[in-house]
């Protein structure tokens, strides 16, 4: 059952098109993440939902009710801004109470609901403080409390973690996810960080140049990217130019023939890109080899020990392979050694070459 439905959004700033036929819908309680680089249109989409930007074309409906032309104050949508946008001249209590006062609630109920919201984000003792007296993480939690205390129909999160340092970011990510699960509110989040998107979202919409490139569950977006752009933006990928031979074989320039996962949409003999994730490539002993693996022999050019994994760059001719290994035995090799790389045909895939976006 569709809860929020977005159909055919088009928008331009002057001569620059920022949204091109953006359509998606989410179910009640679902968390969708708009993921993409800056300028991809994700923030504009969020502002259209909030009512700050009126799209040139397209429609937004919540439970079948169209939102066109409805001003932001009538939409009952909770927004958490990238910089939190806490009112500096008001106490934490007044910040959280703002939306409730606008709704003309009784004083007693406002006090109760603000108290509950502050307890939910575990900051009841900050009620009388000013936003400037709070740490970044605390400010974020207050901004969250302010957004959800109005019991919004939809929650919008704009780059919620970008203003936090790395350690706090991980902490707040789990905390926010727990809160969102508890509240069960339909959420649209915007981010440029693929890990954040995967951690929070039920589904991810990868955006590029104003269009949605792919919309799917995180696992599918990662292991089955629909384009070179998606493959490169979501995780690291080795990319090689080649020519398709049937639906499940590819001839890569300078490396030879490889078997790949079947892709019916690729035309025979067309120019393609072969994509392999670095963690799917293994270092093999020669003896292990059999016909089921794709193999390449190359020279170790670089070796970086990063603790939880070792990062290798293996070279063959002009081609370079990025390889991530978690096994400690890989430490036995050194730069200049000849190694054999192998990966399963099901772990690599082809995308059409004319889709050269990235």
């Amino acid at each position, binding site marked *: 059952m569709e809860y929020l439905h977005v159909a055919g959004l088009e928008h331009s700033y002057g001569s620059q098109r920022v949204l091109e036929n953006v359509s998606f819908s989410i179910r009640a309680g679902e968390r969708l993440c708009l993921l993409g680089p800056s300028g991809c249109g994700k923030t504009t989409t969020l502002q259209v939902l909030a009512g700050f930007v009126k799209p040139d074309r397209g429609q937004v409906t919540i439970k079948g009710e169209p939102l066109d032309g409805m*001003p932001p104050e009538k939409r009952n949508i909770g927004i958490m801004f990238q910089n939190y946008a806490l*009112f500096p001249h008001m106490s934490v209590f007044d910040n959280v109470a703002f939306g409730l006062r*606008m709704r003309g609630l009784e004083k007693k109920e406002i006090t109760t609901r603000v108290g509950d919201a502050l307890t939910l984000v575990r900051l009841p003792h900050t009620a009388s403080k000013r936003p400037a007296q709070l740490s970044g993480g605390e400010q974020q939690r207050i901004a969250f409390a302010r957004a959800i205390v109005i019991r919004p129909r939809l929650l919008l999160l704009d780059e919620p973690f970008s203003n936090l340092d790395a350690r706090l970011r991980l902490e707040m990510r789990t905390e926010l996810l727990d809160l969102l699960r508890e509240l069960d509110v339909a959420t649209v989040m915007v981010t440029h960080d693929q890990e954040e998107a995967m951690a929070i979202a039920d589904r991810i919409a990868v955006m590029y140049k104003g269009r949605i490139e792919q919309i799917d569950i995180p696992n599918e977006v990662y292991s089955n990217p629909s384009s070179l752009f998606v493959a490169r933006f979501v995780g690291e990928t080795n990319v090689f130019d080649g020519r398709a031979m049937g639906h499940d074989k590819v001839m890569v320039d300078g490396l030879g023939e490889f078997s790949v996962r079947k892709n019916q949409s690729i035309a025979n003999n067309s120019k393609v890109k072969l994509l392999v994730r670095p963690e799917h490539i293994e270092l093999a002993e020669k003896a292990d080899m059999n016909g089921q693996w794709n193999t390449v022999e190359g020279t170790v050019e670089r070796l970086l020990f990063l603790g939880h994994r070792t990062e290798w760059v293996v070279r063959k001719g002009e081609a370079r392979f990025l390889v991530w290994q978690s096994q400690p035995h890989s430490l036995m090799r050194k730069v200049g050694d000849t190694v054999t790389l192998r990966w399963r045909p099901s772990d690599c895939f082809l995308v059409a070459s004319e889709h050269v976006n990235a």
Partner: protein
Amino acid sequence: MHKYALSRRGWLLLLIPPLIVLGLLYLLPVFNLIRISFVEYDPQVGIIPNYQLGNYVELLGDGFYFEVLWRTIRLSLLTTLFCALLGYPIAVYLIRSTGWRQTAMFIILLMPLVTSVTVMSYGWLILLGRNGVINLTLAGLGILDTSRQLMYNETAIVVGLVHVLVVFMVISIAASLQSIDQSWIRAARGLGASPATAFRTITFPLSLPGLRTGALLVFVLSMSAYATPTLLGGTRHKFLSYLVYQQAISLYNWPSGAAMAVVLLISTTVLLFISSLYAQIGAMRANLRTSKTGTISGSMNAGSET
């Protein structure tokens, strides 16, 4: 510490030149002014270096002097009020407009500062005079049968002062409006505030510091204004600065002029002090209010947790 950071002594050294300039050009003359205001004056002999309170006693008994002092304060307050009422919308327009509109607005605002006050006051003369543009137009339209005296009254003084000084108000307010993050307004809108409510609850309170600075500037400048009130107010509506001028330059009675100037200085300072006290009390009361609501919710939370 940063390589190029100045030591404490370095900062003090840097402070010395402005301190010297301030001391020579401001503190010394003011000290001298205060000193002269206590000196005795005889029309035949001139200044007698005999320190006494005679000049002040004379002023306190002078009804005319108090009338002028009161007019100066009253019209300065009115000027400040009208500058605020007129300046706020202009500042909002200035912030919101872009390109040539903003430039044009700036030029219009800065024009009075570039033009000499005398020239401008004669400009008002052309508009407001007995045979001025406004009188002739109104007579021509048949609204007035005889031309009215629009010049040489208190209204003309306020009109002229507002014209010259509104730019200070606009620039102060515009500066504080500029520092208001648009995301605050958007947050307020998203939480259910109409544009008017967002202005009342967010924009206006956050622009108050600019309004206060602008008001202080305009008030101080109009308290000490000389040319505009003299030219537009005529002989019957004098400002205190004119009386000081008259005593010191026309009558050569420096001690009496100095005493008047000191009273002007003191009344301006007292009024500024009252206004800053008022602002501080306001801020204190706001803090008290938020901490009160805080404790209410705090105790409520404690209750809900136990």
